[in-house]
């Protein structure tokens, strides 16, 4: 029955809706449907399942690129800087990761680099207690670069395995706040050569197309080495990362699937892609 234009159109319309409501975005939806239309014209696809599989293959292709793996033992301490807009889950992700690393027997130091928001330091300290690692902090209003320097220095002196620095949430449109991040990045390098070895942008899966702007601006400022996609336990699909990862060649290091310390998982592209259609 395939190869009839009306049936092709109906299948494509339904898939288009699935893709849009998964936040895949206009540019990527058009790219995926163009690939499918091309293959339909060549009579390469002869049922709805084949069409869906073709889209999934193209999505996998978008997520296939040379990504530098996390090399935990390549530096001691291995320093991670965590950034992103307000409320996406940076502090919680750091708490989860610290817990995971501690369970693997690693020593971890946390830097309470959000010196701005009410009770941000207290929030990270509670996570530090849960994970069993020390949290370096200064008074509210302190220079975030000074706190991050202090935390990395402490990691070096204690011969810790990993140092993770939290930063205050900030909208990427606020130039002075973005400049502040660049300064924090530079100062961390002064405390330990090569630090930070990782700069991760935390993205909230419920955000829509604005995530593309977030990723571009943070990447321009800091050269991201990875992304963490949070709140995938909700109804949002996070399809926007297809465009982001493809454009920035930044890998998804972890996904957040809840608010407890176990709710951090590695990213599996095929599982993620299948979930976009469920």
């Amino acid at each position: 029955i395939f190869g009839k234009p009306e049936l092709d159109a109906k299948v494509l319309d339904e898939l288009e809706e699935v893709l849009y409501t998964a936040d895949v975005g206009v540019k990527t939806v058009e790219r995926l449907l163009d690939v499918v239309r091309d293959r339909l014209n060549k009579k390469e696809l002869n049922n709805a399942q084949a069409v869906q599989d073709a889209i999934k293959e193209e999505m996998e292709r978008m997520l296939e690129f040379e990504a530098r793996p996390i090399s935990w033992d390549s530096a001691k301490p291995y320093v991670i800087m965590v950034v992103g807009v307000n409320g996406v889950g940076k502090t919680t992700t750091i708490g989860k990761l610290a817990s995971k690393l501690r369970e693997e027997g690693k020593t971890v130091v946390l830097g309470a680099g959000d010196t701005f928001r009410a009770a941000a330091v207290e929030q990270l300290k509670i996570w530090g207690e849960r994970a069993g690692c020390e949290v370096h902090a200064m008074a509210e209003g302190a220079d975030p670069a000074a706190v991050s320097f202090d935390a990395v220095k402490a990691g070096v002196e204690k011969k810790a395995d990993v140092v993770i620095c939290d930063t205050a949430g900030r909208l990427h449109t606020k130039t002075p706040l973005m400049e502040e991040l660049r300064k924090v990045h530079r100062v961390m390098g002064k405390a330990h050569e090569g630090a930070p070895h990782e700069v991760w942008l935390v993205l909230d899966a419920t955000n829509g197309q604005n995530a593309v702007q977030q990723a571009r601006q943070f990447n321009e400022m800091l050269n991201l080495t990875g992304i963490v996609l949070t709140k995938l336990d909700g109804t949002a699909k996070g399809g926007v990362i297809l465009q982001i990862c493809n454009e920035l060649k930044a890998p998804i290091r972890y996904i957040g699937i809840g608010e407890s310390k176990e709710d951090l998982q590695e990213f599996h592209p095929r599982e993620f892609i299948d979930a976009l259609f469920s």
Partner: protein
Amino acid sequence: TLTKGFQAAANRFSGKAEITEANIDEALRDVRVSLLEADVQFQVVKTFLQRVKEKTLGEVVRLKADTSGKKIAVTPGDHFIKACYDELCALMGPVDTSLVYPRGGPAIIMMIGLQGSGKTTTTGKLASKLKKEGKRPLLVAADIYRPAAIDQLQKLGQRAGVPVFAKPGTAPPDLCAQALKEARGYQADVLIFDTAGRLAIDDELMAELESIIQLTNPHNIFLVCDAMIGQDAVKTAAGFKSRIPLTGTILTKLDGDARGGAALSIKEVTGVPIKFVGMGESMDRLDEFRPEGLASRILG
């Protein structure tokens, strides 16, 4: 300034005297792309385009008078864009930024929403605003789960010069009921419940909200949404609306560059007014909602 989607739509009519079936469908396709890029939900876009088509098809654009009485021509392109803008305003309005105050006893405002949407910060902003208006707010720290959530609200309360009612470990429904009983002791005339972020699909936590509502009967229940929210706005708003008698919504983080198309989806699905918009992290950055501002932003 128009996004290139809307500009392209306007250009479809250049040289044309009227809006016809032939030229409108192309223009609507351009608008569709622009709205999807602005995060308006897929089905909401469909309904919107249908409305605009009905309103503008067959319009022969005549001469209109400008403010000095001089006759000027309005092109079909301008007319089409104005129809989109008017329809956006109509869908997101009418303006109603009022709070419900009961005849006797304190008014209760309840803040609910997804994790990280800005509830606690907005609670602080509302407290500051109400205090400036001569009210005596009492903040209730009903998020007993998030690390240092109570701490966060207490710090915001201190900054605003407003008391905070907290009892770590007490379940939120009992806590809110107790706060209501003790309101007189604080001479409070407004209570604001700051609740924990939650997913609309989390049955247990949704039941907790229902329990708070059953015990205290809040007069104002606001769904707080991040303006950057994408297509999920419809699922989330529908999920909350299906179990909670919302009276309004608040859109936060509009000081960024999110187009905010979710506002259309949220208004469409909840049917209640968008009351306020959050325009920054400090306590004075809460504005009353105006559809015109958001309509221009969605148009790009």
